[in-house]
C-alpha cells in the first residue's frame, strides 16, 4: 500500500513538473514572433541562416558563414537557427565548425523559416536594419553571393 501511494505521488509529481531553464549550453528556443522581434530591433543588417546538423549542404556553407562573421561581424549581426534538429546534434555542429561567433537559436518545428516564406534547409535571409527582409537565398550559398548580398546590405 505505501509503495502504491509513493508510486502515484511520483507519477503526479512528474506530470505536474514544469521544465526547468535550459542548461547553460543548450540553444535557446525561438518562435517566429521572437525572431521577428529580434530582427525588427536590430540596428545593423542581419544575416539569418537556417541550418540543421543532419543537412549535408549546410555543412558545406558552415565554414563560409564562419569566415563571413569573422570579416563582417563588427557591422552585421549573424544569427543561426537550427531547425528540426536535436540539441545534441546542433551543439556538435556548432563545435565542429567553430560557429561560436554566430548567435544561435533552436527551432524544433521549423516554424521560423516557414513564417518568413522559406522552405527547406539551408536558407539564408538578409534583413536591412529595422527588420525589412531584403533577400532570401534558398539552398547552399556561395562566397560570391554571400559577400555581394552583405555588401548590398551595407550599401
Amino acid at each position, binding site marked *: 500500500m505505501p509503495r502504491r501511494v509513493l508510486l502515484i505521488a511520483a507519477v503526479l509529481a512528474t506530470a505536474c513538473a514544469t521544465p526547468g531553464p535550459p542548461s547553460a549550453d543548450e540553444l535557446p528556443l525561438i518562435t517566429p514572433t521572437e525572431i521577428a522581434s529580434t530582427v525588427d530591433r536590430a540596428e545593423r543588417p542581419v544575416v539569418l541562416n537556417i541550418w540543421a546538423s543532419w543537412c*549535408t549542404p549546410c*555543412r*558545406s556553407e558552415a565554414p*563560409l558563414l564562419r569566415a563571413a562573421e569573422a570579416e563582417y561581424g563588427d557591422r552585421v549581426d549573424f544569427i543561426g537557427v537550427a531547425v528540426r534538429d536535436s540539441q545534441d546534434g546542433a551543439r556538435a555542429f556548432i563545435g565542429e*565548425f567553430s560557429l561560436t561567433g554566430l548567435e544561435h537559436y533552436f527551432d524544433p518545428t521549423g516554424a521560423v523559416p516557414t513564417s518568413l516564406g522559406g522552405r527547406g534547409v539551408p536558407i539564408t535571409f538578409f534583413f536591412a536594419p529595422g527588420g525589412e527582409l531584403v533577400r532570401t537565398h534558398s539552398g547552399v550559398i556561395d*562566397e560570391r553571393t554571400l559577400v*555581394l548580398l552583405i555588401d548590398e546590405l551595407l550599401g
Partner: protein
Amino acid sequence: MEFRLLFAATLAIAAAALVIGASTRDDPQERRSRIDLLLGVVMGGILVGRITAMLLAGTNPLLRPADLLVVRGGVDPMAATLGGLTAVVILRRRSAPRSLDLLAVPALAGLSAWHGACVLRSACLGSPADLPWAYAEAGSALTRHPVELYTALLFGVVALLLARARTGTPAVLAGSAIVAAAAIRLVTEPLRPTLGSGRVAAYGFGLAVATLATVALSLAGRGRGSPSVHSGGP
C-alpha cells in the same frame, strides 16, 4: 538542386566539345577520343577541386563522402587545374603532353562559356562601379562591374589567339593556356566579391609556377628541335 549551375556547366562542356568538333570534322574517331578525354579532365578536375575545397574548410572527405556531391559548396580552382592535368596524364600516359595541347583551346572556350553563363545564373556582378556598362542587382541601385563577363571575354580572346598558335614543343601550348588562365583570374580577382583578399596569392603563385614551367619546356624543346604541334583549334 541548383539547376542553373548544372546548366552553366553543361554549356561550358558543350562549348569545349564544339571546338573539338570543329577541329576534328574529318575524323569522328579522334573527335570521340578527345571528347572522352575532355569529360575525364572535367571529372578529375571537379573531384580534386572539391576534395581540396572540403579539406581547406576543415571537412574530412573520408568521414563525409556525401559532401563531395555538394559541388555548390565550393571547388578549389587551382586544385581543379592540377586534377585535370593529372587526369590527362593518367588517361593518356606517354601522349599526355600532346593531348594537353589538343585540349588547351577547347578548355579555354569552355571556361569562357562557364563565366559567360553567369548571365543565366544572375551571378555576373562584382565590386561597385559607375562605368557606363556597369549594372545593378535586381532591386538594387548600386551598379557593379560585370566581372564574370570580363573574364568570359578575356578567355574567349585568349582561346582565339591560341587557336592560331603553333609550337614545336609538346605541352608548351597547354602551358601557355594555363599561364593565360591564371593571369586572367589574377587580374579579375580584385573585382570579385570575396572574403579577405580572395585568391590573389594563389593565382599569383599559379601564374609564376606555370610561367616558369612553360618557359623551361619551351627552352628545352628549342634545343631538341621537335616537330611543330598545332593548337587543335578550329
